[in-house]
């Protein structure tokens, strides 16, 4: 009988779940059989006898808790919250946006005196890196062609004068680092912004006469304040902006000042 009792106790000890009351009720006598190679966890991590049944580790606890925003102190179930699409798309930080713009130009001051037509010829290519949700830094490369055709115009030097039809051109090509700050208004689809570019601009003045032409070109230090607005459609948007481009006078060329009016697409 003693041998049968010992086998029964050993079987219960092996089959009992960890922390079970059965494991706690094993009497010290009769002497235990030789210990197994790895003792069962029930023998080393005893649990209180009143513990509820254990859940698997991957099972989340039920969402029954008191809402931190519930000032009434009442307890009860709170609907779970989930991340929304709007919250996920709100941040632009770290992204790079590319923009392609059709750029129209109009000279100001002495630039306008040389070539005063409103020009539809021009473009700008721009990359902007979002260092914050409302701030970008980037690089801009553009081109504006300003021109004018004038009849019976006299070009003169000290000893030479030529009266003829004149075609006058100014090609201007800014290459600048840019920074922009965007204002987030109530409607997040509209992003007005202000910014500036600073860098260089290559300009070329060309006076074309019926039988000859005169050309003057130079690299300038240049900068350009900018106002614009982005119509955000989610993945991209329409861009409208105007830049006042100023190329500082050099030893080889006069200053150039012109507006560029830009319509383009920008990818977010």
């Amino acid at each position, binding site marked *: 009988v003693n041998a049968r009792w010992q086998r029964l106790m050993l079987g219960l000890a092996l089959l009992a779940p960890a922390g079970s009351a059965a494991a706690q009720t094993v009497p010290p006598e009769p002497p235990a059989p030789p210990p197994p190679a790895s003792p069962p966890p029930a023998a080393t991590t005893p649990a209180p006898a009143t513990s509820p049944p254990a859940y698997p580790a991957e099972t989340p606890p039920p969402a029954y808790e008191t809402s931190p925003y519930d000032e009434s102190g009442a307890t009860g179930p709170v609907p779970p919250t989930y991340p929304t699409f709007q919250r996920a798309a709100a941040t632009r930080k770290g992204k790079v946006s*590319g923009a*392609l*713009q*059709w*750029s*129209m130009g109009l000279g100001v001051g002495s630039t306008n005196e040389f070539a005063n*037509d409103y*020009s*539809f*010829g*021009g*473009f700008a290519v721009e990359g902007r890196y979002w260092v914050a949700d409302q701030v970008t830094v980037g690089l801009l490369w553009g081109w504006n*062609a300003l*021109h*004018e*055709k004038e*009849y*019976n115009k*006299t070009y*003169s030097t*000290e*000893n*030479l*004068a*030529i*009266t*003829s*039809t004149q*075609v006058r*051109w100014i090609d201007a090509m800014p290459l600048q680092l840019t920074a922009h700050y965007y204002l987030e208004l109530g409607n997040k689809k509209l992003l007005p912004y202000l910014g500036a570019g600073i860098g260089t601009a290559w300009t070329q003045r060309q006076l074309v*006469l*019926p*039988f000859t032409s005169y050309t003057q070109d130079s690299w300038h230090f240049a900068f350009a304040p900018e106002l614009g607005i982005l119509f955000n459609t989610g*993945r*991209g948007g329409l861009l409208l902006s105007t830049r006042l481009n100023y190329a500082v006078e050099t030893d080889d060329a006069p200053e150039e000042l012109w507006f560029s009016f830009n*319509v*383009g*697409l920008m*990818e977010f």
Partner: protein
Amino acid sequence: MNRHYRPIIGILLATSAASCAPASFDDEDDTDMVITMRQPDKDFSSYRTYAITEPVVDLGAYAEDPIQVPHSVVDPLILSSLEQEMDEAGYMRVADAMADNPDVVVTPGVVATNNWGWVSYYPWYGYTGYYWYYPPVPVPVNTPLGSVIITMLDPNATMRDPNAGQMDDEERTLVPVIWTGAMRSLLYDSDEAAAQDIPELMDQMFDQSPYLKVGGAQ
């Protein structure tokens, strides 16, 4: 870039490129031109009298592909308008360029040339709603241009030819050209057009040379 934007990008690029078509010389008025040159820093304030050499010199021998100038139409216009401008500038005309020893001698010349080029166009373009879709046909066209060249000499400021004696032993005396005016326009196909354009361009020639006025307007 979202594929929905591709058509818009295409429109942007095409519009930008099409807008870059250069302003060019493409109508009749573009052929009109007046050029004046003076001897560098020449002072005309001391000149008072002038003579005009006649007849008007035909310079066709010095031009490539010359055409016949209607001298009977243009020569009287050139001479009369030149005299009028010199008078208005304050000069007094003398009859004989050799005997009357004028301060300046004015020599008019004229030449006409063919100027061939190519023109491409769409036949019947826009004709009552029909449009020509085939490539335009390049057609050779000629723009006959006439030029009048006025040369002003100072017969009293002769100088010895610095090259004399190198080619031969002949001693030559040079008369300096102190002013040159040239005007160019379409060769006139009617007397009325010539009567209007020649005096107008001659007037421009003197307007852009204010230093020619007697008494000296620099």
